[in-house]
């Protein structure tokens, strides 16, 4: 699993979605669920901070 900081928004969001789905199915043993839940919370916090702090970056292609 990649460190959350290295993920793009899309990747983090997709992983979060996946985790929720897995937990929803409810087929995992409890300790795995707890691990995944922790990861999910991390990802959610990361996504939110990305969105909250983002500033549009504009650069011009050099000649």
């Amino acid at each position, binding site marked *: 699993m990649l460190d959350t900081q290295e993920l793009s928004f899309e990747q983090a*969001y997709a992983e979060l979605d996946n985790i929720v789905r897995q937990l929803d199915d409810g087929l995992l043993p409890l300790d795995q669920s707890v691990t995944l839940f922790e990861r999910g919370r991390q990802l959610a916090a990361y996504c939110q901070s990305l*969105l909250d702090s983002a500033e549009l970056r504009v650069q011009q292609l050099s000649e």
Partner: protein
Amino acid sequence: MHILIEAEIVYSPHSQANGQPERVNELVDELFALPQTFTVTSLNEYIADVFDMDETLADVWVEGEVSNFRKYESGHCYFTLKDEDAQIKGVIWRSASARVGELPDDGDKVRVHGRVSTYPQRGEYQIIVDRVRPLGVGDLYQRFEELKQKLSDEGLFDVERKRELPAYPRAIGIVTSADAAAFQDVQNVLRRRYPIVEIVLAPCLVQGDLAPPMIVDSIERLNGYALAGKTLDVILVCRGGGSIEDLWAFNDERVARAIYASRLPVISGVGHETDFTIADFAADVRAPTPSAAAELLTPDIADLLADVKQLKDALALTMTRQISATRERLDGQTRTLSRLSPQSQLDRLRLRLDEWNERLVIQQKGRIAILRERMAGRITALNAANPTAILDRGYALVLHSDTGERVTRAAGTKPGEAITLRLADGEIAARVEDKDTHARYPRTLF
């Protein structure tokens, strides 16, 4: 209008030719069968007929420069159309003014379409205009249609080859003029909606003859940038609104081909909602305006935040649910466990033991009761069979003195043997003197 008639004087047998000019005039008149003299009205009417019957004049296109254009209160428009050497009056009836096209200004070079007719009362003719086109635009429309058909036939616009735009672009390449309002609009939209995206601007001219090669170059350079491994997911080609001439660079064949050849998907946002350029057809997606393009490219951050929040909540909810479910299972197991524990087994056995005890006791009591009853019965029977009762009736029990055993038969005794006679009130010691075993006593049969 002058009608010149040249004729030879003919020597006619009907006249003494020399010296009779009036008669010649009459002959000439008869020969040409024309009315002798027009009135101004009739002449003008005749001229009107000539114009109205002419096919060419009924359907003309005329190029010229507009001057003295005036719209009257009546709604009709009057103007003059001229070139260097000549001019003609023009009129646009109010009824036609809605569909005629853009009304021209003085000095505009135009192509107009209409019908030439006369104004008999004034002896003037004019062109009654039903269509006005800026000069050269007709050309442009035609070239546009031709190029569009040509490229369409080649397959440049095929729907199958159109690529999907990325849902969460990390970087957007923008092809437009850096100073243009369009670029500002796009930045504003992106900043509001999706500030986590990066913009890479490849500036170019967006109008004029120098624009198409620059647009092509920008598209190619952005592709090169992506190919070099830099992050770039999509290209946005845009410019603000304008006339067909202003937007003409985006109808250039070279631009269309560059868009088609781009490895990165291209979205176009050129002009206003009703403007369609060749670039729009070649692009993977067409947006009505630059701002609309920026919106199409990106998700709204507000939606994303809401989605992330929803996922967070869902996460917490499923976690809680799973924990509850597990706890319930645990409780169930605990209950089962305690049910199966040695302690409870003991308790259960103890209970059973008590039960058995109870039943046993009840049974025993029952048994004892029965036994007692039987005992009582036996005692009664026993009493009834009590031999001492017999004694009370006066009988004697005979016993061998030495053994104490009863003598039931006389034959069982020996003469001289000591015997004891037991009676109700005591005993008598006696001796056998003589016996007779043949004596028999009647017995009562029951």
